């Protein structure tokens, strides 16, 4: 590790003072396993097409389902657009060597698509975004991954899932969501937060609105807040046997579903989650250019961080190439890089594997890595090994949401109504 540039001890976003590149003569790598002394490089076109083929076939099967191509154009057009959109982005990811740029496009679209589809479905099914007591009693609340940390202790102690949803059957049941979460944990670790979470894309989108951040310094202490929120909500949920986070804190209820305001308590809850949404998902990401909900608040993210320990992939820094410019520290959207982690040649435990630092490193010193293998060898292979499960997960989760949103938009354009 070069020791040229002094580092700051807070997380400061903004333009890093990267040293000028001195590797003008270095040729971009073309092979899968080629190491490079430069930022992500283009691949050979034929090879990129070949590497994109598996996803092309998979998404075709996935989007069409068992029924083949639909005849109704209201369903056919969204399917074709989603198919092309998904595969174009994956191809560009493979061809250009850039990860975060194209991941973010899909991720943000998925989040917007999710909100449109979810709200439209709710309005169609029960005429309102607000949950009534009757809906809760019937177990009609879709289970969401955010609830998982709160359910584990009560489930172990009482064999009860403390959530008014269905264990099996129906929309977003508990068993399915647990299955998806376990799959994501094994394949991606906390990468789930950048490749699967249908909420994260909202703040990711807002964090990309401004070119430069207005707020640059955030104290290191606040990066531990998600763990404190996790401790608080897990304990309260275990002791009161109720999903505390969902009731009081989840900012995303603002754009999905929420309890109808029928008492002072529900009013306070509503003020809290709407304020958290406005602050952490909209305003702070715009001001800081960071994913502040994910990095400074989300207890599910904190919980998921521990799964990085058992996941096969991580992001590593080649200390021989690193010039200590701290650009990675400055651009990391979830505060997962700091001086100490860079010195250790890696990220903090909270890394979401979004690939932004990999894209931004002016020396190409940062790469996806398979644990147990040498850092400098086969960085391209390690990246592809991560991209396949990562993007497949994104496409599986997001494809349907984007397709659903396009269908609703087409319905609105042709009939004047988003719901039937």
């Amino acid at each position: 590790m070069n020791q040229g540039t002094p580092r700051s001890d807070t997380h400061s976003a903004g333009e890093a003072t990267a040293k000028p590149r001195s590797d003008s003569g270095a040729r971009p790598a073309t092979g899968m396993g080629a190491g490079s002394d430069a930022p992500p490089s283009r691949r050979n076109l034929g090879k990129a097409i070949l590497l994109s083929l598996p996803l092309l076939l998979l998404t075709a099967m996935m989007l069409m389902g068992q029924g083949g191509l639909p005849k109704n154009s209201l369903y056919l057009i969204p399917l074709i657009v989603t198919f092309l959109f998904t595969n174009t982005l994956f191809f560009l990811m493979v061809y250009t060597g850039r990860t975060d740029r194209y991941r973010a496009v899909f991720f943000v679209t998925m989040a917007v698509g999710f909100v449109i589809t979810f709200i439209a479905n709710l309005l169609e099914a029960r005429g309102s975004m607000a949950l009534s007591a009757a809906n809760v009693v019937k177990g009609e609340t879709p289970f969401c991954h955010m609830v998982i940390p709160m359910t584990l202790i009560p489930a172990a102690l009482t064999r009860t899932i403390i959530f008014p949803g269905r264990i099996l059957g129906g929309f977003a049941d508990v068993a399915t969501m647990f299955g998806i979460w376990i799959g994501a944990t094994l394949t991606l670790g906390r990468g789930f937060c950048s490749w699967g979470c249908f909420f994260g894309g909202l703040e990711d989108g807002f964090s990309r609105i401004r070119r430069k951040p207005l707020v640059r310094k955030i104290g290191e202490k606040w990066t531990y807040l998600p763990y404190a929120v996790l401790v608080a909500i897990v304990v309260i949920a275990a002791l009161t046997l109720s999903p505390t986070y969902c009731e009081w804190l989840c900012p995303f209820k603002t754009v999905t579903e929420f309890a109808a305001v029928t008492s002072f308590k529900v009013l306070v809850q509503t003020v809290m989650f709407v304020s958290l949404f406005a602050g952490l998902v909209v305003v702070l990401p715009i001001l800081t250019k960071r994913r502040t909900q994910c990095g400074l608040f989300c207890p599910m993210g904190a919980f998921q961080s521990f799964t990085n320990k058992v996941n096969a992939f991580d992001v590593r820094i080649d200390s021989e190439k690193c010039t200590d410019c701290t650009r990675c520290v400055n651009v990391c959207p979830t505060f997962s890089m700091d001086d100490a982690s860079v010195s250790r040649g890696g990220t903090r435990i909270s890394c979401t594997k979004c690939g932004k630092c990999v894209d931004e490193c002016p020396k190409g010193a940062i790469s996806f890595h398979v644990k147990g293998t040498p850092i400098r060898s086969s960085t391209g292979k390690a990246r592809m090994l991560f991209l396949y499960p990562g993007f497949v997960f994104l496409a599986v989760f997001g494809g349907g949401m984007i397709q659903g949103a396009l269908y609703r938009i087409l319905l609105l354009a042709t009939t004047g109504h988003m719901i039937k």
Partner: protein
Amino acid sequence: MKQGIMYEMEAFLLGFSSGTVCLAYCAPVLVPFLLGEGQGIRRNALLLAEFLLGRLTGYLIFAVFAWAVGLVLFPTLAWRQVIFGVAYVLLSVLLVLYGFFNLKNWCAGERAPHFLNRLTNKWPVRLPLTLGLLTGFNLCPPFLLALTRAANSIGILGSVRFFVFFFLGTAIYFLPMPFLGAFRSFRILRTVGRLACGIMGIYYFYLGIVMLHGGMRQL
């Protein structure tokens, strides 16, 4: 019955949320002591039990004190609710400040090593017991909040019960202590613990407002 369980849960929860901070302050004193004794897990467990007994004694003394305060000062229910509502609000603000901002010297445990050195030089005392008792007499915001809540309880037994469960909440973190080395990152643990206290402060602020509102309506 459910009300009673909720009361104990609340005490346990408050203790649990502040327990990491207690641990973070006490561990730097207790760990070197246990390491210094260095007589295996069973011996360490006995020393820890002695320490926790001292701590419980300190808490119980406070429980009786809290009950006496509640009995003497606030005889009617409405006034109790108003006074304790105000106390909740003020102390929860203190808890939030303590949790989210850098306020120092809240805990008697920080000063314990100094006192202990002077004490052991003069009198033959059981060191873990004394250490536990001293760290039990602390006035950090979670403890003050527990004191207020216990004073608001009905009867001396309610007050004692609250402090016993508060103690149990804090004591959980000490249990792995005999297996030293489990808590190496005290700084991070302390940070997380204090932030968790801040979050609990927000919860108590809400409870205080509800209590105050209820009391005002009855007056």
